[in-house]
Structure formats: structure tokens, C-alpha cells
């Protein structure tokens, strides 16, 4: 074996937190036990001080092949601390049968979606279908809510993504206030009140038993929803997330994993070789075709074989144009705190505890406080 241990697909979603914690302990102890780490999109800022710069090892040509947002996300203080390996994105699932039944076209803006949901709910109520809801999303106070809310906000031209690349706190702007307030008005009307405690699986459950017209979820739900035993199999449509108004853009948060090499590794050369191999074009293609991992190079999505894998791969390029990284690089070691402050205030707004205006102002104030007005984010 070239490398002693590799943290590959071993960390399932369920143990992610534990994995991050273990990983931090390991790195903090400057342990050389593990050479290569699989890191989440929001970890680079957190861990960068323990990871080597990979820019010197990839050619200019190869650099251009990766999706630029991903490299940007993994770059901390001009150092590429991890190479993007596979992707996860937010998607809009909808009930094809219901939309067709009422002649409603697939919505392209949040406003359209709101209108469509209201209309279908009203008509369905007439037929006695009282328990149907319009839209479910990840509303529990956790990282998932941060993802959802960034997608709403960044889809508007002036919405931004909480903290901009230069460190400036941008969250308190009229468009962010507008859309967060709008979503808050959906709670109890279009979205069930319980959405405030839903993670992705709760949403999937409700959508799968046919109780919701629209759902925001990750790509994994597609396969489960279309399982022959699923009540909605064959009636599910999938598309990119709605735009923020006519001038907005569909904005999906970037999820996914990258590979990094530990500074404390005693076999750096071997480790780097393996990372370069695993994140190379051929290997990315193989993993996409054989295991359904979404590759991190744009060119692969244009290849016929990859394109025809599922309706999602076909959407991918369109989707990635508007993809927004979470503000993990610029906020460094403070990211999880930034995210928690943000999701708590979004949660408060959705639970109708204070207006979006007041709560987003409070996010701005807190973030400016911990970053000395956006000038001092501690880099990892």
C-alpha cells in the first residue's frame, strides 16, 4: 500500500459530526497516522493550517478543468488545501402529476412556485384533499437550514451569501429581508408548521407519501422516491431551484467532498500522488458511471454517457452556473459559529419571533462583532 490509511467513503452522513471532531483531534495532535483526509466543503477554513498547499502539484490546464467555484471554496489564503472530489447540490422536486392535472408549468422563480402551490392547494382542497401541503424544506435549526436560506437569498441579484469573499458582512440587505420574510409567511400556509423541525429525511418522508407538491432536497432522494414501492414513483419531477424574481439566478449551495493531504504525513509524496489520481478525470468519470458520484470537472457533464445517467446530471451544468459556496473560506475557523448565528435567526423569523428585518440586522451585528466589522476573520 502506498499510504497507511485513507479516510474515504467510510464516513457516512450520520457520523459526519463525529468524523469532523475526530479529525480535528487528530490534526490538533499533529498525528501522522492519517495521510489523506476526506473533507467537507465547509471544512477547509477550519482545517487549513493542518493541510498542505496543493496548487504546486496541479498543472494550469488541470486547474481549469475543475469547476471554479469549487477551487475557490477550497482555497484559503491563496493555498489550495483540498482537491474537489464529488458534488452535492440542492434541487427542486415537484409532483409532475399534480402540475399536469392543473396545467401549471414548472416554476422558475420563488414567486411562481408560491403562486403555483397556492393554486394547486386551493383546487385540491375542493376535491377534499385537505392534508396536502405546498412546499417542504430543511427548516430545523442546523446546517441544512443555512443551506436552504443561502439558496433563497443568493438567488436574488443583491442577496449575497452572508459574508462576501472580502470578509464584508452582507446579510442585512433589502432582498434578503424580502425573501426570508416571504418564506416565513409560507409557514403554516404552504409549508407545514412542523417544517421547522425537518431535516432532509423528514422532507423526503412527507413528499414520498404524497403530502407535498414541492420539496427542496439533495440528489439522493431521487432514487428513493422512484423506488417501485414508493407511492409517488414515476410522478416525481426534478429541476433546478427557483430564481429570485425575474432578474435572479437559480442558486444551489455547493455540497460535497474533497481530498486533502495532512501536513504531518510522513509520506507526502505518495499521498499527493494518490489524491491526484483519485481526483483525476478518468477516476472521476469511473466513479460517476459506476457509483453515481457527481464529478467535479465541468467537461465530464458534457460527455454523453455521464449526461444520460439521470435527469440530475443533465441539469448539473445549468445548476452549477449559479452554485454558491457557503461562506466557509472567508470566515475560516469561525464558520460553524457564523452558520449557527445565521440559522438561529432564520429559524426565529420562520417561527414568527421577530421580523426578518430585525433578525437579519441582529445577524449582521453579531457577525460584525465576532469579525471586528468583517476585517478580522481568523484564518485556520
Amino acid at each position: 500500500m502506498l499510504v497507511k490509511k485513507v479516510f474515504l467513503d467510510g464516513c457516512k452522513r450520520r457520523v459526519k459530526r463525529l468524523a469532523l471532531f475526530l479529525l480535528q483531534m487528530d490534526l490538533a495532535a499533529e498525528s501522522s497516522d492519517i495521510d489523506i483526509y476526506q473533507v467537507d466543503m465547509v471544512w477547509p477554513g477550519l482545517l487549513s493550517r493542518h493541510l498542505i498547499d496543493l496548487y504546486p502539484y496541479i498543472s494550469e490546464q488541470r486547474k481549469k478543468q475543475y469547476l471554479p467555484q469549487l477551487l475557490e471554496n477550497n482555497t484559503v489564503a491563496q493555498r489550495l488545501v483540498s482537491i474537489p472530489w464529488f458534488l452535492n447540490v440542492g434541487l427542486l422536486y415537484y409532483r409532475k402529476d399534480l402540475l399536469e392535472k392543473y396545467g401549471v408549468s414548472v416554476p422558475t422563480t420563488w414567486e411562481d412556485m408560491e403562486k403555483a402551490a397556492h393554486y394547486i392547494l386551493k383546487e385540491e382542497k375542493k376535491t377534499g384533499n385537505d392534508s396536502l401541503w405546498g412546499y417542504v424544506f430543511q427548516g430545523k435549526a442546523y446546517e441544512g437550514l443555512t443551506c436552504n436560506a443561502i439558496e433563497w437569498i443568493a438567488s436574488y441579484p443583491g442577496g449575497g451569501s452572508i459574508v462576501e469573499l472580502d470578509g464584508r458582512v452582507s446579510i442585512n440587505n433589502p432582498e434578503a429581508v424580502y425573501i426570508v420574510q416571504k418564506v416565513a409567511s409560507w409557514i403554516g400556509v404552504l409549508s407545514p408548521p412542523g417544517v421547522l423541525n425537518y431535516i432532509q429525511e423528514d422532507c423526503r418522508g412527507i413528499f414520498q407519501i404524497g403530502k407535498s407538491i414541492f420539496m427542496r432536497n439533495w440528489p439522493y432522494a431521487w432514487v428513493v422516491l422512484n423506488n417501485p414501492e414508493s407511492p409517488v414513483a414515476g410522478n416525481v419531477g426534478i429541476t433546478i431551484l427557483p430564481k429570485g424574481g425575474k432578474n435572479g439566478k437559480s442558486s444551489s449551495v455547493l455540497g460535497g467532498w474533497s481530498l486533502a493531504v495532512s501536513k504531518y504525513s510522513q509520506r507526502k509524496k505518495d499521498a499527493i500522488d494518490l489524491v491526484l489520481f483519485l481526483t483525476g478525470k478518468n477516476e472521476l468519470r469511473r466513479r460517476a458511471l459506476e457509483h453515481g458520484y457527481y464529478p467535479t470537472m465541468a467537461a465530464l457533464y458534457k460527455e454523453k454517457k455521464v449526461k444520460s445517467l439521470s435527469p440530475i446530471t443533465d441539469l448539473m451544468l445549468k445548476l452549477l452556473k449559479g452554485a454558491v459556496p457557503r461562506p466557509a473560506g472567508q470566515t475560516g475557523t469561525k464558520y460553524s459559529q457564523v452558520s449557527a448565528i445565521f440559522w438561529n435567526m432564520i429559524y426565529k423569523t420562520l417561527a414568527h419571533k421577530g421580523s426578518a428585518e430585525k433578525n437579519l440586522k441582529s445577524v449582521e451585528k453579531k457577525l460584525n462583532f465576532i469579525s471586528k466589522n468583517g476585517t478580522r476573520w481568523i484564518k485556520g
Partner: protein
Amino acid sequence: MVQDGSRDKWSLGLSGNSSQLTKYRVRSAWLFILPTLLVLCVVAGWPLLRTIWFSFTDASLSSLGEREFIGFDNFLFLLQDEDWWQSVSNTVVFAIASVTLETIFGLGIALLLHANFKGRSWVRTAVLIPWAIPTIVSAQMWRWMFNDIYGVINTILMKVGIISNPLAWTADPSLSMAAVIIVDVWKTTPFMALLILAGLQMLPQECFEAAKVDAIHPLRVFWRVTLPLLKPTIVVAVIFRTLDALRVFDLFYILTSGSTDTMSMSVFARQQLFDFQSVGLGSAASTLLFLMIGLTTIFFLKIGRSKSDQQEDA
């Protein structure tokens, strides 16, 4: 029973007549508990001291080595932090409400199980099932039962006609406290019942026989005989439960939405420690929780002791 035990312990070390035998007994007693003490020092004492030490520093999880001593700053920050106070009030409300309900229900169930009926041992075993299920499992189970769309609880309440619209049990901050208390009462009442039942079975039968001979009304027997005799047992059970309730973590973590409105003190400390990597601040939050639990213990012991002293005087 409990008092007798504690008096025995005191006589080990404190009794005035230090005969050869007593000295020998004291020495062998220390010898027997020495391994336990050693293990406790390693697994409980050392981490505890380390946590207290960390709470005076600005240590961070990603660089534990580079820490500076910052005095009481962490504690001052917490005492001014509204989120921390919210977690304190959540924890206290939870502890008081759940322990009160558990004591009342536990006492009721213990009295029922104390009666002689067919299949009593089966029922006694069955009652323990909620207590035997790991909390993390039952919390997840209840999370599904409380679901607003497909949860069985809303369905039942709506069928019976108590509510007309489904309630968002675990999402609504005002309801989720109730939900957490309900689950804890469901889970821990059997424990209370068992402790109290054990106490009931130790009570001297003569008092009850005398009451029977005098044809005293059963309710009067309960208030005047059973309850006073049972008090020491109940106090111990309540201490156990309160200390356990103050450090509650899993129920809040799994069942509620995780917002600052519905955090217990342990959940708050965990978030600081691991999510925010502030080992210093998280340790300070843990230390305050430890102090709170310690003070509660001392308070209960004080009450317990002064009460038993009174009883001895009488």
C-alpha cells in the same frame, strides 16, 4: 432503611470509642474502596479538573496547545449571554416539571404494583420496558410519533376531537418543551416507581395492621402512615432524578429543533465545545453546570439530613 445505612457508615470513622476492632474495620473498609477511588480519580476526577482548568483559558479545539490563561472572562461572557440563560431556564423548567410528574406518577404506579394481584411479576417487568430502551432510540421513536404530518399522536388527538389542526409538537418552541417532558416522564416514571416500590415493601407491616384494626379510612392511612414512612425513599429517588434531569442532553438534542430557544445546558456546552471549537467557553459552560448540580446535591443532602435529625430527635 436508608437512615440506618448512613448511620452505620458514620460509625465507621467517627464513633468515639476507637477500639481495636473498629480500627481494623476502618482499615479494611478503606482497602476495599481504594480500587474504586483510584478508578474514579482517573476516569472522573482528572477530566473534571482538566475541564475546570480549560474554562479559565481561551483554548480552541483545533489548537489545544496554544491556550492562554484569561481568568474569569469565559464565565463573565456566559453570565451576560442571553442564549446561555435561556438554556439554564430550559433546564430548570424541564427538571422541575419532569421530576414532579415522575414522582407523582411513580408513586401511583408503585402503590398499584404493591397490591396483590394475579400476574403481578409480569406487570412489574413490563413496566420497566420504557426505562430499558436507550434514550436515543426512544427519542427518535417519539420524534416520529410527534411528526405533524404522519405522526400517530396528532392522528389520535384529531380523531378523538381534542384538536382540529395538527400540532407541530417538536418544531414549536412552546410545545417542544412539553414534548420533551412527556417523553422523559414516559421513560423515567418506571424508574421512580421501582425505587418507591422497593421502599414500600420495606415498610413495617404493623402500622398498617393497626390501622386496619382501627378501621381507618384508606386515604387517611395513605396520608398519615404510608407517605411519612415513605418519605426518605422518595427523597432519595427525587435526588437521583433531579441530578439526572439537570444534565439532560439526548432528549433535547434529538427531539427539538436545536435552536437556542430549546437548548439544555448540556446541549449548549456541546455546541460551544465541538461546533464552535471554543474549548474554553464550552468548558466554562460545563463547569457552571457542574457547580449547579453540585449545589443542588448539597441542598438536597442538607434537607435530607436536617429532616432525619428531626426524626431522630423525636
